[in-house]
């Protein structure tokens, strides 16, 4: 990454600086390493929020820049989580089993240990056999590779089939919904090998670190999430800043034209789709150890729709917009659904935010789309004097995903 890249993209430096500041502040206020002003639960929430910001960047790349409205990226997020979750659960159970068998008169054989782990993990689904998907669960290295390989491969196969047949627009969005629905239904089955609707749990307990309190672990994971977000942001900014960014924005606005220039459009889409799936997988792998549990409901179709809502509210087509949208909406949602927001008593009806929050979110999504398509990120324009072109309501290209007049700058 050359210096000119950073100089040409001052927003990247601003973002990294703000993120660093935020990380330092949270560290000094945390329970584990600081004054304790921020509870461990809150540190985890903030760390998870950073993971959401990372997947939002992926979503912005694929939708905001390349015009592919994927409504399935949470499937990749979930898969990343499952991959790391398998190792966490296996290794942690191994520790427990080893401790309990240590007092036995005869030292346990390897097979006995494995069987005991299997009984522990799969008892809830009435089994004790390890399914084949757990073949490498004892190896952290392999599971880490799978964190990127499994979402990447699924995206590659799905994208190859879809893009090759030139499926675009609404049809592609529906296909991605079908993909994430199918995945979640599959995972819900007890014989999927991933504990059905129980999912994987106890993921906050890091194997071999039983003596490190959660308050400290939470800060470490917060750091890791911050580093991943910074890396993801830098990488995405680099990708979109050069000619590659030019090509994918061209695909977003007018893919036929890009084709006639000689660019293999399908290859570009596949590349971006797979790359962002990998980013989503990494975000998921950092998220679930902080959440502590992953189950098939996490990859339900609605999750991916929320992702699009975050990016839309934050402002698509600009990376910091995606980050702002994800952070703002997910934190607000935590706040509203946490039950700590006072109910509004209208006399004839009491608005309970836990259930009404969804409605409020839906309404604000519609309002943003209609009246402020630049989203929250558009507020930045007020400071840097970015102007919208006057195109009499015309979009910037003929394609469905193309930038609208109100989203563009002059």
């Amino acid at each position: 990454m050359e210096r000119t890249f950073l100089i040409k993209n001052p927003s990247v430096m601003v973002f990294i600086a703000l993120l660093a500041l935020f990380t330092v502040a949270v560290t000094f206020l945390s329970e584990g390493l600081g004054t304790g002003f921020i509870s461990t639960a809150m540190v985890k929430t903030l760390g998870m929020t950073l993971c959401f910001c990372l997947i939002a960047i992926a979503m912005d790349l694929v939708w905001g820049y390349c015009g592919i409205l994927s409504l399935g990226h949470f499937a990749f997020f979930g898969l990343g989580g499952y991959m790391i979750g398998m190792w966490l659960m296996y290794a942690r159970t191994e520790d427990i089993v080893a401790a309990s068998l240590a007092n036995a008169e005869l030292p346990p054989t390897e097979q006995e240990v494995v069987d005991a782990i299997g009984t522990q993990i799969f008892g809830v689904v009435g089994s004790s056999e390890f399914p084949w998907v757990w073949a490498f669960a004892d190896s952290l290295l392999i599971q880490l590779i799978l964190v990127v390989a499994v979402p990447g491969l699924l995206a590659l196969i799905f994208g190859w089939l879809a893009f090759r047949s030139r499926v675009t627009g609404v049809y592609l969005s529906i296909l991605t919904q079908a993909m994430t629905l199918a995945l979640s239904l599959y995972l819900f089955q007890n014989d999927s090998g991933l504990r059905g609707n129980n999912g994987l749990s106890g993921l906050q307990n890091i194997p071999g670190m039983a003596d490190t309190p959660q308050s400290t672990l939470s800060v470490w994971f917060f750091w890791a999430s911050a580093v991943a977000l910074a890396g993801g942001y830098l990488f995405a900014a680099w990708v979109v800043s050069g000619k590659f960014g030019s090509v994918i924005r061209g695909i977003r606005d007018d893919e036929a034209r890009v084709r006639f220039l000689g660019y293999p459009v399908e290859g570009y889409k596949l590349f971006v789709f797979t790359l962002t799936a990998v980013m989503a997988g990494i975000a998921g792998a950092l998220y679930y150890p902080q959440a502590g549990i992953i189950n098939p409901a996490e990859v339900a179709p609605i999750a991916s729709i929320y992702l699009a809502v975050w990016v839309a509210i934050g402002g698509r087509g600009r990376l910091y917009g995606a980050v702002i949208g994800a952070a703002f909406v997910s934190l607000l949602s935590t706040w509203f659904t946490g039950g700590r927001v006072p109910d509004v008593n209208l006399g004839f009806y009491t608005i309970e935010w836990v259930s009404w929050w969804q409605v409020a979110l839906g309404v604000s999504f519609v309002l943003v789309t209609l009246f402020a398509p630049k989203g929250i990120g558009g507020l930045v324009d007020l400071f840097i004097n970015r102007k919208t072109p006057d195109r009499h309501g015309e979009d910037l290209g003929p394609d469905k995903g193309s930038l609208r007049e109100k989203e563009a700058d002059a």
Partner: protein
Amino acid sequence: MSTLLEVSGISVSFDGFKAINNLSFSIGPAELRAIIGPNGAGKTTFMDIVTGKTRPDEGQVLWGEKSQSLLRLSESQIAQTGVGRKFQRPTVFEDQSVEDNLLLALKKNRSPLSVLGFRKSSADGDAIAALADEIGLGDQRPRKAGELSHGQKQWLEIGMLLAQDPQLLLVDEPAAGMTLAEREHTTALLKQAAKTRAVVVVEHDMEFVRRLECKVTVLHEGSVLAEGSLDHVTQNQEVIDVYLGR
């Protein structure tokens, strides 16, 4: 004379309507050709077939010395073999600068990985600057293409075509929306381009075609009605009946 593009016996129908009917056409490696014909004659559809956008129901499209069939290639592959196209409506990337539009078109490796690692060299910058000057947009390079006037967008698209450096240039109604001076400039550019490559120009405007001083192919209802010099075809009774007579 050898041929660069040899189209033989192509037909295509849309919902039973024959837009192209047993059409044959060929052009040499350094030739300027005008295609005229009334609206709906199939001129744009012909370009769609050559560029791979539309598959013909029958017929052959052969390319180059090795007579490679273009029908098996995708749009992007056809473009890479050396067919450039200018659309009827100006189509430039409106959200991107004039400079970026030209850079996108500049003849380079088009694969995702090589584009990802691409960095503009000073030679590329010079090439773009020269092109921008040639199309009269030298001082507009940082501007968003969407802000340009209709005529300037036409220019930019022609510039992008030249940047692609194709062996065959298909130009659909380039003079639409241009002033007289701009038309003259366009004529000069097209004639210049045809010295080193094949150029096919679809045009309605007779004055414009006359100024191109080239062989003319008249299309009507999806097939060739007449071919020859402009004077020759305009004296053809059939041509007068279907086209000039109106």
